[in-house]
């Protein structure tokens, strides 16, 4: 019988893993809310963010926060360019074609990184801190940093959507594209903004993942299925949903260790998807954007 502390530790670990997943998942769901297709290119943009942060931190010697900002900006910028030059042209052909084009795009970008950086594993030039204990529960200061960064990024996004003109316009497009067009909101501008923000978040998430794992051309790819699981469980297109979904998947994957051997962990995300979608075909929070 697992002790309460053990379960508590698993929940804490799950929340930490989930928060990291939440950042790219929110990016994914934001893009989906406005452009209406699951953008698999998120994987390579997360990797681009991890590498941008790496260049800023390990090569240029910048500290953590400016490196994180760099990850956001570079991935966001690449996101806008890759959408303008590639994915935008596929959108009239429907969401399936666009989604599949985004897979091809992500392979192309991954290999641009591979060409430049090679496959070697890299790491940030940041010290690693020991965990501390609160009672019987072990907590990592770095995970708390990640939690804070993720939290601030999400809060900033909410603020942006709630209080700025562009943010409101984005919500309008997400809720009702037709009506938004009639109101004279420029869909192209909104698409660029949402790509910048969405892929920027993917890049930021990629850097956070890189902090815990390794930086190589597959950094984003390794986590993409969990990110998708998070967004789908929460309800594709719903930003709070992505957060809820990421926490559900994160905690679910950890708690399953009580019953299953760790090598089944990846399957849990998908079982969670099936369970949630069987009960709620549009995810926990449905698809309303906000």
């Amino acid at each position, binding site marked *: 019988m697992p002790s309460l502390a*053990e379960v508590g*530790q*698993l929940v804490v*670990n799950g929340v*930490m*893993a989930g928060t*990291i*997943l939440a950042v790219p998942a929110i990016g994914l769901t934001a893009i989906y809310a406005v452009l209406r297709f699951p953008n698999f290119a998120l994987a390579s943009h997360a990797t681009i963010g991890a590498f941008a942060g790496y260049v800023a931190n390990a090569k240029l010697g910048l500290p953590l926060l400016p490196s994180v900002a760099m990850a956001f900006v570079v991935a966001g910028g690449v996101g806008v360019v890759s959408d303008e030059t590639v994915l935008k042209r596929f959108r009239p052909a429907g969401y399936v074609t666009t989604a599949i084009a985004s897979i091809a795009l992500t392979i192309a970008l991954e*290999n641009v990184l*591979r060409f430049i950086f*090679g*496959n*070697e*594993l*890299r*790491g940030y030039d*940041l*010290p*690693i*801190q*020991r*965990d501390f204990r609160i009672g019987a529960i*072990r907590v*990592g200061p*770095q995970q708390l940093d990640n939690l804070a960064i993720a939290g601030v990024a999400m809060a900033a996004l909410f603020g942006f959507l709630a209080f700025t003109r562009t943010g409101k316009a984005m919500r309008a497009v997400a809720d009702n594209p037709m009506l938004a067009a009639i109101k004279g909101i420029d869909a192209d501008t909104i698409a660029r903004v949402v790509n910048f923000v969405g892929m920027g978040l993917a890049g930021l998430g990629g850097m956070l*993942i890189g902090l*815990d*794992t*390794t*930086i*190589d*051309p*597959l950094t984003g790819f*390794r*986590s993409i299925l*969990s990110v998708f699981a998070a967004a789908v469980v929460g309800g594709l297109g719903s930003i709070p949903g992505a957060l809820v979904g990421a926490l559900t998947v994160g905690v679910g994957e*950890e708690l399953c*260790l009580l019953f299953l*051997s*760790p*090598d*089944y*962990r*990846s399957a849990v995300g998908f079982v969670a998807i099936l369970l949630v979608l069987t009960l709620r075909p549009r995810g926990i929070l449905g698809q309303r954007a906000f």
Partner: protein
Amino acid sequence: MPQTPREPRRRFLASAGALALGGLAPALVRAQGEALQLGVLTPLTGAGGFDGPRMAKAMQAVIDEVNGNGGLLGRKIVLVVEDGQTNPEAAVRAARKLIDVTKVPAIMGTWASAVTSAVAPLCWESKTFLTTVSGADSITKLPHQGYLIRTQPNNHLQAGKHAEFIASMGVKRCFMMSIQAPFAQPTQSRATEVLKEKGSQMVGTLIYDKDKTTYRSEVDQALRANPDLIYLNGYAPDVTILLRDLYRAGYGGKRFAQSYAVTTKVLDSLPHEVTEGVITVQPSADVTSPAYELAKKRLGVAEPDSYETQATDWASLVSLAIAKAKTPTGTGIRDSVRSICQGSGQKVYSAVEGLKLLAQGKDINYEGASGPCDFTEIGDITDCKFRYNKVENGKFVLLKVA
């Protein structure tokens, strides 16, 4: 109406045809040239992408040396590198190309056990020689008619020797964390057995999933068993995460890993305090192995890891076997490989040295950078010592060879 869509189709087919001719024709011309072509099939993309390039580089270094000393059978050697993509389906297509188009006598470098098992039947059916690092015990038991050798010690040999070493360090409680791979189960059971014989104990094992961002809960599970050594039986990407998570958890005991999972590059990517004291293991010939020293110089690497040394040995063994057979065929390599790497001939430690002696009509016995390179009937190495390094301040320090 049907006219418009047909036009682009024709254009597509025409350009596709042009691409085909442009691509294939020169390849045919090249095949008739002077150079002796050998196949390399390492993973350059996918999960094995971290290890494949190092192996390709190590083989190229040996071949460059041979070419610089007059080549092989009077011909220059060219390595034709294909990407196995760490995917059996893609690797089979790549192997087909090497076998049927480039017509190589040998393919060197398959990494994942699944890729080796998929490619091996093509090799023995077409009489092409295959060299691999794949660890799954099943591989050498395939009906390969001698067309396969493996320089990686099999699980039984490795796990047994590693466990002996671990027990000899006075470790009483060992825990093994393995990535989900064919070597996980057999290594666990053999190590458990030997630890017990030697008065130590395996206090627990777990198999973890690859591609996770953190292994905190797995680490917790391991620490609950209160081990004084944790054997991290995985690859570089996941072992890196495990080392970090173990450090964060405040684990102060010993950590033990394969040299290919904790390489010089991995040490560079992690803070020194995280890797301090990690013990790595790789097969080796002896403490003062001239072949290992030569590999260091050739590669410009302080401590070549297990994959780099094995790749060094493949290129050397295949070159020497071709020279001995006097003909660049897979069957020639198969029939002569054991006559250049084992027996009573004069010991040699590099391909160039061996080629010189062979040219003088002498018998040789190649002793490799990854071990003595003596093979059983089924292509496994008969025995080898292991080189144990310890990480101190971000650098490897030799612990012992046993």
